[in-house]
């Protein structure tokens, strides 16, 4: 078992790295689903780039989670041999792509969160998490910018693109409260300065989203029946289908190489 900073147990480090890594892995797979379906060739390459950035982050984080756990599981075993109940990602990132408005709204909501998170983790007390976050923050910033430009164009575009943006916001907003609900492991890691307290980034996140929506002729939906549970392993049915596709090849041909 490799302990982190004084006081942060290996198990807690495993838990939080797993949560952050699963966010990246699942969203990466969702974005990769656009390949050959994107509205324009240029946008397809952009979405694939976002997916690859997130996959790189997932590899680092899951490797760290495996090391901290100390049971010999590597990134591949964590990615391919866990069932949905063992995934710790946010419900937001597993939501289906829907139309382009849904995909860009999901990206805006998540990238704004990830950018704030990585920025704070990069100056945190856990050196391995900080190193991964320092590299990832530039990527998150680019993802946020990409989503921002599209949300602005869709929200301020035609009647049709605007109403689709509103629908996308109504659809995804219920999953945003979970972003700021800490697990017990997160709480302990935050007490030790390895992670930011989630309450401290909720305000800045809301401000970013609000000003972005305002400049896109959109607004935060008024009411939401909040959904959460991803960090505890209670997922929507969508994750099972996603994992079936993602894990099928590896499970059918264990240790296959090509």
């Amino acid at each position, binding site marked *: 078992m490799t302990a982190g900073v004084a006081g942060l147990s290996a198990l807690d480090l495993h838990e939080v790295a797993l949560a952050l890594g699963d966010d990246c892995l699942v969203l990466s797979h969702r974005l990769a689903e656009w390949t050959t379906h994107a509205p324009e060739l240029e946008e397809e390459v952009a979405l694939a780039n976002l997916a690859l950035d997130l996959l790189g982050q997932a590899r680092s984080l899951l490797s760290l989670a495996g090391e901290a756990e100390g049971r010999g599981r590597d990134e591949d075993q964590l990615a391919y041999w866990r069932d949905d109940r063992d995934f710790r990602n946010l419900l937001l990132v597993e939501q289906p792509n829907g139309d382009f408005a849904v995909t860009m709204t999901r990206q805006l909501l998540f990238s704004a969160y990830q950018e704030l998170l990585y920025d704070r983790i990069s100056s945190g007390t856990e050196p391995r998490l900080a190193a991964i976050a320092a590299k990832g923050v530039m990527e998150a910033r680019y993802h946020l910018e990409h989503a921002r430009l599209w949300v602005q164009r869709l929200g301020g*575009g*035609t009647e049709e693109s605007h109403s689709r943006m509103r629908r996308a916001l109504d659809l995804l907003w219920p999953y945003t409260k979970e972003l700021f609900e800490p697990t017990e492991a997160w709480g302990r890691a935050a007490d030790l300065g390895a992670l930011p307290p989630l309450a401290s980034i909720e305000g800045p996140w809301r401000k970013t989203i609000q000003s972005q929506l305002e400049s896109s*002729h*959109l607004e935060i939906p008024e009411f939401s029946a909040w959904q959460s549970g991803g960090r505890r392993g209670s997922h929507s049915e969508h994750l099972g289908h996603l994992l079936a596709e993602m894990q099928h090849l590896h499970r059918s041909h264990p240790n296959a190489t090509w």
Partner: protein
Amino acid sequence: MGRPPAEPDVGCLSESDDWPLWEVFLRGRRGLAHQHVGSLHAPDPELALQNARDLYTRRGEGVSIWVVRSTEVHASDPDDQGPLFDPPADKAYRHPTFYKVPEDLQL
């Protein structure tokens, strides 16, 4: 707020738009000038720059990007090739090879 604008915002897509073509120029890490690397489609300059970043700098090729609407590039007519480019051909004194380099000059 909360309503679509009567007219699409500047830089926003309208129903009938086909994305125009843009020429992409890149200045490499040690390059002194921007060089033409290709073209792409995008609805406006901001997204053209983003697309150029994703299409042409994925392996760390560049430090600066220019995009120019293809319609703004004016090209010489291939039929004018003779009058435009033939005259210098027989004027060797316009080339630096015409001059003798002093023997002790270190290049």
